[in-house]
């Protein structure tokens, strides 16, 4: 298996490849090429339109939506739904708009919870998995390959399989509906993170390290002062991927953290859906809440998009 997973392409080789693709002799514009671009354009529209529709609905007056308005711009454009999702609208305003729900989304609390959970998971995973990855990539010790193989096997276990025993464990430890309980299974390691970083550490030249050893530097100092600074790019990529994965996580926090104080955004959104009336549902506030839940990821992606797109080569498979 490991021989089929190549280390991810670095941005440099990617860019070089892109350059050589551009350098290829340009073929004459032909109908095939125009057709191909048309298909590509259609794909981009299909991908982006639902996000536009989410935005458009979030800004619409709910009463217009319930009447069946399908205008491309938001009918009766308003910020009230966003205010409601953020918990800033008054009860009278909500009643006037007819968008009451039995469960308030408590957006800021859920946002805070998501940020706490994702930050803890990301910090823990990046630190502990980079330590493990360094040991697997660089240190010699008995049983190294066997332990690494075990870690890899854990990557194949479907999450639902460990969900039940982990739930019992967290419950017996009295950690249900606490942040430590939600964070615990992801805090110390995920097999993917160890595997991902090991691939990069294997690629770092040994010579620098050997010079440091001759100077009498210990392994910990080498790791902290040489390896970590040299691996800023892959560490950032892993941190972002970890953060997004944690942000999107649903099944585990639903099981161990479905109470007001600790609900993360995905679980809070589901609670909001459950508290929504079936007749004339308040689609506009609901879409506002989903938009707000997706927004941090979209912003993160706008800032770090290139790095992440480049990272989704073969190391991106999970």
């Amino acid at each position, binding site marked *: 298996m490991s021989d089929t997973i190549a280390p991810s392409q670095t941005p440099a080789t990617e860019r070089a490849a892109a350059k050589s693709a551009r350098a290829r002799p340009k073929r004459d514009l032909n109908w095939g090429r125009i057709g191909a671009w048309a298909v590509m354009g259609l794909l981009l529209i299909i991908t982006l339109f639902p996000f536009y529709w989410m935005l458009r609905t979030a800004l619409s007056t709910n009463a217009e939506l319930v009447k069946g308005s399908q205008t491309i711009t938001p009918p009766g454009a308003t910020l009230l739904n966003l205010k409601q999702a953020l918990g800033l609208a008054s009860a009278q305003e909500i009643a006037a708009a007819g968008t009451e729900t039995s469960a308030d989304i408590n957006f800021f609390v859920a946002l805070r919870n998501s940020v706490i959970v994702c930050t803890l998971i990301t910090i823990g995973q990046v630190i502990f998995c980079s330590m493990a990855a360094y040991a697997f990539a660089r240190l010699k*010790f008995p049983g190294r390959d066997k332990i690494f193989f075990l870690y890899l096997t854990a990557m194949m*276990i479907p999450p*639902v399989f460990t*969900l*039940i025993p982990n739930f*019992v464990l967290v419950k*017996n430890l009295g950690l249900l509906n606490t942040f430590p309980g939600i964070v615990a299974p992801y805090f110390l390691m995920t097999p993917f993170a160890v595997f991902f970083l090991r691939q990069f550490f294997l690629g770092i030249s040994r010579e620098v390290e050997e010079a440091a050893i001759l100077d009498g530097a210990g392994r910990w100092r080498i790791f902290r002062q040489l390896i970590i600074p040299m691996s800023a790019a892959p560490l950032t990529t892993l941190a972002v991927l970890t953060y997004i994965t944690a942000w999107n996580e649903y099944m585990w926090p639903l099981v161990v953290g479905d109470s007001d104080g600790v609900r993360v955004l995905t679980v809070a959104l*589901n609670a909001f859906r459950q508290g929504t009336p079936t007749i004339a549902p308040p689609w506009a506030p609901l879409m506002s809440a989903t938009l707000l839940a997706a927004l941090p990821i979209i912003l993160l992606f706008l800032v770090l998009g*290139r790095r992440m797109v480049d990272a989704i080569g*073969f190391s991106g498979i999970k």
Partner: protein
Amino acid sequence: MSRETKAAALFLLPSFIGFVVFYAYPTLRGIYLSFTDFNLLRNSGEWVGTRNYQAMFADALFWNALWVTFKYVVINIGIQTVLALGIAVLMHRLTSSVVIRGILVLPWLIPNVVLALLWMWMLDPSLGIVNHYLNTVGISSQAFLGSESQVIPTLAGINIWRHMGYTALLLFAGLMTIPKNYYEAAALDGASEWHMFRTVTLPLLRPVLALVLVISVVGSFQIFDSVQVATAGFGGTPGGPGNASRVMYLYIFQQAFEFYDLGYAAALSVALIVLLVFVAAIQLRLLRAGESDLA
């Protein structure tokens, strides 16, 4: 113990604790639980031998869950792979623009829960934009998530929409490893695009394609979030209409956390893991994933 071994032990310690406590131990405990009648309310259980497994084989809902999941996987993977391959080849031919790749991969980054709610709205039988557009071209409104025959294809469609760009990117990375001169040689011979795709791209991409297929099939068997959210409507229970979308993950989840029958749920998840190993092994064998035609 050598100095290096001691250092390694310290470096490995935190992750090893995580591995033992949250991967190895629960895996063994899950297998053990499947032979007990562990109940969540009692928080205890007795050894019952293979009773859960016997019950499972006699359980019509278990077979239903398998069948529903199987239908979902076939539709999802079949269409998604063809589309992703097409998109990857398109990108390879037209552009390696980061913006285009970024847009195509965007849905994959957004939480499933968010997308499930969004598609619930867009596919709403009376107010949804999709039915509105269907009506304008003369097709009557469809129930989609509310229809027994349409719910699984609809969920597969949502997932295809979410994953096609991401899968295309993986395949695109594979296409970049095919040496250019193969195409140049084929072009000199006057080969058509389709001919080049069949004789150059497909055979050389095979190891990558095999890996992507195995991973997406295994992932596809694990659909949960979107079913749990999108098939429940407002305030309803997920898995419907009837049992039409009660996939394996959802059935395991409901046995464990709605009926509190952890022992039975554990037996179901053992069955799922056996099935997944079996499916992955068959695929790797059929696709000869380990060999490369490039070597």
